[in-house]
């Protein structure tokens, strides 16, 4: 593995950094409004970010997972709410269709995930099944040539902006001892009759990123909506989450990096006792540790990404990257707010937003506790 990503991967990330610099007040405006302006999503489509993980044969860029992780870091450093939507759209949703979709499904659905008309959604979580994802209750029943989907999904990222959703539902009855039996992935257009998006959740952070419930009230879809094979949806979901965890690790790196940079800049300017506060060890040491953790987290994320690019197993490495990076982001944003002192607690200085946004990273795409379970299980099975 190269410790420094290759020139093209780095150039793609720098291009996105340049674009993100131009976001300016649109970030604060969207966070206050609690919604993502769709013109930003359109720009990401025009820029080629949304299709960067899609192979060239399907109209995408065919960039590496390493490049995508670097780009997500840049997006998150500028605007974490945007980064999570892109991670889900281009990582999990487009990635699942690329990997498991038929040629017809790829041709039909991928353009909507690449051109910036919206951000795709992935519906696994339910009101009564979070970490225990296999306990989902949504069902799909055979009806003529197609399927009838019923169920309620919870905390669905970008539901309000999504042209389509990959929904996980069970075909048949749960089987004792085989909790994921029958779970099937369906590609459902959001304008299908019976798809109901609930009110947007009021969250602590990531305010511009939509998080809503999605109801499937007897939604009828054809056989061509089945992604992969009937009963194989849980494996698709888990594979999607592996990739998604690299994305959230990269998002966490971006948040932590931005927090350290802002704290450094502020600490140079802010004077107390006649000297810039960065002259005090109490400010220097936490920033030094945070910077070391940013680099360590990035290397973990890029290792998982490089393994994925090489076609090697990366479940454990993705869980390690997500666990470490998301928890490093908590420490980095906490310390950054401390450097700002009272101003850090004020909305006017954006550092509090990074602290609020970071909080989600140890929870979604599998909590830190689930990551530890994944890592421990892998250690024990290897022994």
């Amino acid at each position, binding site marked *: 593995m190269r410790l420094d990503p290759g020139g*093209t991967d780095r150039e*793609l990330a720098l291009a996105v950094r340049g*674009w993100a610099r*131009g976001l300016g007040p649109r970030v604060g405006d969207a966070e206050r409004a609690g919604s993502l302006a769709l013109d930003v999503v359109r720009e990401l489509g*025009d*820029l*080629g970010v949304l299709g960067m993980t899609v192979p060239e044969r399907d109209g995408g860029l065919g960039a590496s997972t390493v490049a995508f992780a670097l780009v997500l870091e840049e997006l998150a450093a500028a605007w974490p709410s945007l980064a999570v939507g892109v991670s889900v759209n281009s990582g999990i949703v487009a990635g699942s269709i690329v990997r498991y979709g038929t040629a017809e499904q790829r041709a039909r659905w991928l353009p909507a995930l690449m051109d910036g008309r919206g951000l795709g959604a992935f519906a696994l979580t339910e009101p009564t099944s979070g970490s225990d994802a296999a306990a989902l209750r949504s069902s799909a029943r055979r009806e003529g040539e197609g399927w009838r989907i019923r169920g309620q999904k919870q905390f669905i990222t970008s539901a309000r902006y999504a042209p389509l959703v990959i929904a996980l539902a069970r075909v048949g009855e749960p089987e004792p001892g085989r909790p994921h039996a029958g779970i099937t992935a369906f590609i459902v257009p959001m304008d299908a009759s019976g798809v109901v998006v609930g009110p947007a959740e009021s969250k602590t952070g990531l305010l511009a990123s939509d998080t809503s419930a999605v109801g499937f009230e007897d939604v009828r879809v054809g056989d061509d909506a089945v992604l992969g094979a009937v009963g194989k949806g849980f494996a698709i979901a888990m594979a999607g989450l592996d990739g998604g965890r690299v994305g959230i690790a990269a998002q966490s790196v971006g948040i932590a990096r931005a927090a350290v940079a802002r704290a450094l800049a502020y600490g140079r300017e802010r004077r107390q006792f006649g000297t810039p506060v960065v002259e005090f060890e109490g400010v220097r040491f936490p920033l030094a540790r945070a910077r070391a953790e940013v680099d360590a987290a990035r290397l973990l994320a890029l290792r998982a990404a490089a393994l994925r690019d090489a076609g090697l197993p990366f479940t454990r490495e993705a869980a390690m990257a997500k666990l470490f990076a998301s928890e490093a982001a908590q420490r980095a944003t906490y310390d950054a707010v401390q450097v700002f002192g009272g101003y850090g607690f004020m909305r006017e200085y954006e550092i509090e937003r990074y602290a609020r946004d970071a909080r989600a990273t140890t929870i979604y795409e599998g909590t830190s506790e689930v990551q530890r379970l994944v890592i421990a299980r892998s250690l024990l099975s290897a022994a």
Partner: protein
Amino acid sequence: MKFLVCLKQVPDSTVRVKVGGDRRSIAAEGITWSISPYDEYAIELALERKDADASTVVSVVTVGPARSRDALRQALAMGCDDATLVTSEADLSALDVAKALAAVVNEAKPDVVLCGKQASDDDQGLVGPALAEALGWPHVGMLTKLVPGASGLELWREVEGGHEVWSAAPPVVALVHKSEKEPRYPSLPGIMKAKRKEIPEKDLASCGVTPGAPRPEVALMDLPPQRGQGKVWKLDGDAKGVAEQVAKALREEAKVV
């Protein structure tokens, strides 16, 4: 229509420039290099014509050291069709640069040559007019907009308090002040495509240029003196009283009124 945009690679505007040890040049270590901002506007103007008419060809050229290839690559990533690099590691006079560019223009035969009105490193603004002179082409400065017109091209110029519209039949050299839209970002597919494009390289000799045109030399380069610390007065009283104290301090202490 065929455009040729002449660009220069300069230190990025975010770079904190330091003076070199010789005190006649800037310290080159650690500098991030970019396309000069006015040249980016020129590229944007040309690409807007290409957006409007897909048959438009936009070429770019630069005269500079080998690292200038990155600036050409960036222009290709923005959407330009092809690029030419004239390499010279030496710091050339504006006249020598103009002569080298003229050789490229004569070979490429564009309808319109666009240059930024000045480069952001030395702000001299000499190369564009010198190129027009070397070519014997008409020259328009302070361009802000360019549209096809009945008699060739409509060239919009910014002037004090308004704008003028000039017309010119190609070929013409125009120096760009700004574009209506901000220069576009290189798209990710554009970066990938640009990677695959060949950038032909020429040297000054193949352009028929022997450097040595008369030029002034930089005698001294220096940063502005460090500003002294400010002073905070704690003033009491009503507005009139405070104003009197400020006026007195400005006159007697700062000696600026």
